[in-house]
């Protein structure tokens, strides 16, 4: 309810779900850079917020170290909801339904305060677990993949799974994947204030990736084909470029034939979790 309520924004025009829409696995279906109040344009692409319960750090630069601390970034950012926590709490406390609902969830509470607001939003986000894709069914022995999808999976394990590792398809680290040679967005270096982290961004999970276009921290690639073309032939060199993309023989990126790209995309589509997307609770 809170997640879908534009009350959280200054002029009641932007809800969390504007840019984290359920139908596209809680990302922004329309904009490379999402729009906030007064159509103000943000600086990064809205990432999927599925499986946040399992993440160590949040945001493209990992500056947020606890799920509770994620929502105030959107609420108080002038380019997003442009509101203050104080004002949100005022609106909630004089609202017709919220005080009663909060009391029901947190019996010890008299007035809605920041921690309770953030607990409520975290509880909701922690429920957004995506783990029943075709790939998961295959892993559990309850479903099968096509020949092409299986070949894609093998390729993925060989060429992608160093960074996009494990059940979440991310090692939760930060990497420069060769998008640029100069970095107007410092990425991870904004947080660590170290040149060694320039242009590094969080390795995103790939669950539901077929639905989360556009891709990259700035939404520059419209399709998965564009993304694979980048890894195959578009990687640019810079001092912080990921070792995995630096190649062995002076060649950058991950060599991929068109057939391999097709197979990889077929596999990536098996990560779409329809049970999650259609879950009536969200």
């Amino acid at each position: 309810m809170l997640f879908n309520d534009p009350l959280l924004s200054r002029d009641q025009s932007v809800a969390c779900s504007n840019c984290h829409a359920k139908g596209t696995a809680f990302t922004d279906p329309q904009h490379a850079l999402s729009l906030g109040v007064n159509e103000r344009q943000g600086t990064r692409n809205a990432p999927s917020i599925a499986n946040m319960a399992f993440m160590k750090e949040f945001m493209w630069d990992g500056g947020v170290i606890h799920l509770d601390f994620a929502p105030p970034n959107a609420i108080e950012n002038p380019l997003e909801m442009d509101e203050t926590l104080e004002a949100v709490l005022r609106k909630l406390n004089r609202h017709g339904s919220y005080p009663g609902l909060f009391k029901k969830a947190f019996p010890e509470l008299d007035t809605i305060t920041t921690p309770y607001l953030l607990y409520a939003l975290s509880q909701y986000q922690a429920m957004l677990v995506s783990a029943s894709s075709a790939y998961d069914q295959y892993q559990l022995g309850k479903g099968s993949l096509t020949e092409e999808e299986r070949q894609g999976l093998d390729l993925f394990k060989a060429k992608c799974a160093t960074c996009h590792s494990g059940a979440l398809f991310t090692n939760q680290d930060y990497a420069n994947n060769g998008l640029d040679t100069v970095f107007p967005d410092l990425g991870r270096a904004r947080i660590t204030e170290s040149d060694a982290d320039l242009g590094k961004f969080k390795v995103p999970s790939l669950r539901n990736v077929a639905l989360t276009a556009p891709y990259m921290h700035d939404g520059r690639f419209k399709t998965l084909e564009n993304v694979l073309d980048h890894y195959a032939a578009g990687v640019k060199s810079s001092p912080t470029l990921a070792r995995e993309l630096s190649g062995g023989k002076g060649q950058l990126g991950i060599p991929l034939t068109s057939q391999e790209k097709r197979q990889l995309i077929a596999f990536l589509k098996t990560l779409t979790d329809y049970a999650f997307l259609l879950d009536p609770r969200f």
Partner: protein
Amino acid sequence: MKNKLFFLLAFLAFGFASCEKESESKEPGTIDINFDNVAIVNGTQTQLSMATAGSTTYTYTNGMSQTFNVTLLRYFISAIELTGPNGEYFKDEVSVSAAGSKGYYLIDESKSASQYVTLNDVPAGEYNKLTFTVGVDSTGVVDGAAGGMLDPATNKMFWNWNSGYIAVKFEGQSPVSNSGITGSESLAAGAANGIVYHVGGWKNQPGTAFVYNNKRLSFTFDTNVKVDKDRNPEVHMVFDMLKLFKGTKTIDFTGNHNVHKPADGVDVANNIPAAFAFDHAFKGITNEKKLDHLRGVFFCFSCLHKGRCGNQHLPV
């Protein structure tokens, strides 16, 4: 009238002095710590004078002869410990919860009540050393949202984009500052003469680039203060605002005057330890503070002149 009052007060004072030995209680007591924000110029201590946004009255001068004023001063004190000469030890409870976090104190120049930290259930005994952290360490951050003093909606001391609490928030104005400031609480965005120092950084992880700007400080008193259920001593600490800008590093208001991230705040952070000092302690005979107040209003017993004498002359 004045004479009558003198005798009354003298009687009270001797009365308490003579009772002291008889009331050696072993039950825990309370100790107050007063954080007094001041400016010390040529050895003379004055109460901090605050300015409003837009004011062009610049009361203070930094180490580079640049004038400035103060529109906001607020800092976190946490994880307080007291130790004594005979092994006495008290550790103020630190806990984090939505209903109200404990052990975190926000000293705000605009709220006089915030400048008194009351520590309860201090074991009876003598204490001569105070230790505390300026800022909020990982304990206060890693468990997520918290209430009480740690509520970001009310303390206005939280960095959203790089989770963590600001340790010391200073805002003011200086005529030499010549480019716009951002993210100020007390000044308009873009204010050309603003000086904004939001100093923090809690990730104390060796081998990483994260900057740790909180400071753990210890102060030894010039006397032992006795605590028990009958004695309520007060330790008076001073925080010399001027020392934020001179000390190990001299701060120049013409550059780097819009500080909002850990690395930019290192120089000011390194000046924090010298800004705090132990000033004096009221040893804590019951009602002594009331007598001290009267002494301040009327006269000093020992100096026998009107008004506060500045010496700690009351018998203890």
